[in-house]
């Protein structure tokens, strides 16, 4: 608690104790009034002052003003009645202040909680100067400086490992607890925690441009983009308070006048004025106004802790209405790297064939030859290879260990006159011919991510009606991947511009209420990310283009996170709707009961403070998303 809150707590306790003690004091008349004024002024003096200032500034619908009118009115009625019942007025003020205190405490607490969750801001960077380590402000480190990160420290700035090897904990960035290995030459992202060895890192960016600054900036500004629910509530609050005040005014005057002039009975002014004052107590919109932004704030905070960055409350809202999810294939559902997936009709040992292929292709940097070299897995001895000829659009012919090895496609085989066996598998086929004889073929294809199929199932379970895959790849490959994953619709052989057109077509074909999300890896698909109702970029650690273009950024490339993001948004929006319905509902019921004279001020203050406390506690639930 801060100083202001402690002072308020002291005032609340003093006033409450005084009020209870007065309950037993056998005084009446003016002394009684004066004694009750002590706790009333202790608890409410600041409200009364604010109310006076509000009158000066013509703020008639200010909360303090309304509270002051309600309580002063109640005291005046008690004086007029001579009932001596001042407890009610003091209690209303007391509970109002308790509510305010609780609200300020809860909001402060959740502010701190959420900033702790996002505690990835590095405080310093270690720079070696004159043989000693010096701690400097990360802002002052220039690009290209070598910084040192000791075990247990955060990586402050993006860079490349210049020396050392270690494991990194990326949990704060990705929500993923599996550690990552890095060694010399690897790119390293700020915000990770160095767990084991000493690392020397050559920075490639300034601190302000580094991943960690970008993320913090994004999360901190997220709740400034307001959602429709928030707009609705602030509009509602703007109308609600004046409406209730005018209703109170009408309630104070109309029924008594009707009674006197219409029905010819006693006006009963006290009863109606009391009911009108009850209205004023219920007129404060605070429960509503605080709980909605707090829910979104907590939801966005919880999501970023799980590695899902949502760029605004509005996007969280749209995400929760997602019914169609469109995927890019390569890099999103598949790894985006090529792997040897099969070896067919091979006359020799499979390993031997891969070895020949890797050696023959050793001079090329094409992804296919890279994947062959990876599959071979050993150092390549270039001295075993000679006479390499690249056949453009076909493959290579080279001498390996004295044998003539040809590795390439159908065209190459036709060209050198070797009969080959066509392959039914999907992917890139590399036929091999050794010394003029067919030696079998190697199938290389992009590999589906291990969690992709489960991710599609979970999306369906989370209420997504249709899944669509777009790809520039061949139809055969696309259909196979889609069938394997259980995707509803596939559009293949698309150029980047076709993808935008396809998404537009899907958007125009769906219901306005149903939202369409596009998931891509941020490479070449920025226009589609922008065009979709909601653009989700995945595996975005360090990719500026993706962070820029997308509305939701998944920090790692696990497709399971998409379903998780949707569930987080559903939970948050569920809480938002609960709070709206609950707060407005209770207030309306209390207004109705108050008008009929069933609800007194005690119930009215519950409608105000109690509802606010419950709504705030409910809002904080949005923070807990680990188990979703």
């Amino acid at each position, binding site marked *: 608690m801060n100083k202001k809150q402690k002072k308020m707590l002291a005032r609340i306790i003093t006033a409450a104790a005084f009020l209870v003690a007065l309950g037993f004091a056998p005084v009446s008349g003016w002394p009684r009034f004066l004694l009750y004024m002590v706790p009333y002024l202790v608890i409410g003096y600041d409200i009364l002052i604010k109310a006076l*200032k509000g009158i000066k500034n013509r703020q008639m619908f200010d909360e303090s003003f309304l509270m002051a009118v309600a309580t002063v009115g109640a005291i005046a009625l008690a004086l007029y009645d001579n009932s001596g019942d001042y407890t009610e007025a003091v209690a209303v003020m007391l509970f109002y202040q308790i509510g305010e205190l609780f609200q300020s405490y809860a909001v402060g607490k959740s502010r701190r909680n959420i900033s702790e969750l996002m505690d990835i801001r590095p405080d310093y960077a270690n720079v070696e100067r004159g043989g000693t380590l010096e701690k400097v402000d990360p802002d002052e480190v220039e690009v290209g400086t070598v910084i040192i990160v000791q075990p247990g420290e955060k990586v402050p700035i993006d860079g490349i490992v210049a020396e050392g090897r270690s494991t990194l904990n990326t949990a704060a960035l990705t929500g993923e607890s599996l550690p990552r290995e890095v060694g010399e030459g690897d790119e390293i992202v700020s915000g990770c925690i160095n767990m084991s060895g000493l690392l020397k890192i050559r920075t490639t960016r300034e601190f302000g441009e580094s991943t960690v600054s970008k993320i913090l900036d994004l999360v901190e500004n997220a709740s400034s983009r307001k959602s429709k629910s928030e707009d609705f509530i602030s509009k509602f*609050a703007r109308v609600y308070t004046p409406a209730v005040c005018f209703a109170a005014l009408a309630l104070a005057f109309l029924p008594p006048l009707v009674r006197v002039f219409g029905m010819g009975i006693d006006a009963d002014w006290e009863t109606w004025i009391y009911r009108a004052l009850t209205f004023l107590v219920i007129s404060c919109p*605070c429960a509503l106004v605080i709980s909605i932004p707090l829910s979104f704030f907590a939801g966005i905070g919880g999501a970023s802790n799980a590695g899902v960055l949502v760029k605004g409350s509005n996007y969280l809202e749209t995400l929760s209405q997602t019914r169609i999810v469109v995927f890019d294939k390569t890099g999103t559902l598949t790894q985006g790297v090529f792997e040897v997936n099969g070896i067919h009709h091979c006359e020799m040992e499979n390993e031997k064939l891969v070895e020949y292929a890797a050696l023959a292709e050793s001079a090329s940097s094409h992804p296919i030859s890279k994947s062959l070299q990876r599959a071979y897995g050993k150092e390549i001895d270039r001295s075993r290879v000679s006479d390499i000829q690249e056949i453009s659009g076909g493959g290579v012919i080279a001498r390996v260990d004295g044998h003539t090895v040809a590795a390439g496609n159908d065209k190459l085989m036709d060209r050198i006159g070797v009969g080959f066996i066509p392959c039914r598998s999907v992917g890139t086929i590399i036929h091999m011919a050794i010394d003029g004889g067919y030696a079998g073929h190697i199938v290389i294809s992009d590999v589906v991510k291990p969690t992709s199929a489960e991710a599609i199932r979970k999306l369906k379970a989370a209420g997504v009606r249709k899944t669509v895959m777009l790809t520039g790849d061949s139809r055969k490959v696309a259909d196979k991947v889609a069938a394997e994953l259980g995707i509803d619709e596939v559009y293949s052989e698309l150029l980047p511009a076709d993808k935008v057109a396809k998404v537009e077509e899907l958007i125009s074909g769906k219901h306005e209420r149903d939202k369409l999300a596009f998931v891509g890896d941020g490479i070449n698909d920025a226009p589609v990310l922008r065009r979709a109702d909601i653009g989700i970029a995945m595996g975005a650690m360090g990719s500026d283009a993706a962070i820029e273009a997308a509305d939701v950024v998944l920090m790692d490339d696990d497709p399971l996170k998409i379903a998780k993001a949707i569930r987080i948004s559903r939970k948050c929006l569920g809480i938002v709707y609960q709070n709206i319905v609950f707060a407005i509902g209770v207030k309306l019921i209390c207004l109705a009961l108050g008008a009929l004279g069933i609800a007194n001020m005690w119930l009215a203050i519950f409608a105000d403070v109690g509802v606010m406390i419950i709504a705030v506690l409910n809002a904080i639930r949005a923070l807990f998303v680990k188990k979703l």
Partner: protein
Amino acid sequence: MMKKSYKIDVDCANCANKMEDAARKTDGVKDCTVNFMLLKMNVEFEDGQDPKAVMQRVRANCKKVEDDCEVYI
């Protein structure tokens, strides 16, 4: 187009909304959002306006609707 962010201090969410309204209606302010959770005010100024002078007016207008608030300029 110039945008700036200012730290604010205010106790209740509804007051923050009122400040947003008041700031929006101030001369020289094109748009404004107040973020109660972060206690931040993002102001977009109209072209050719001096942010310092505008913010003085914003602060005065906010004080009118909510006496207990502060805008740190």
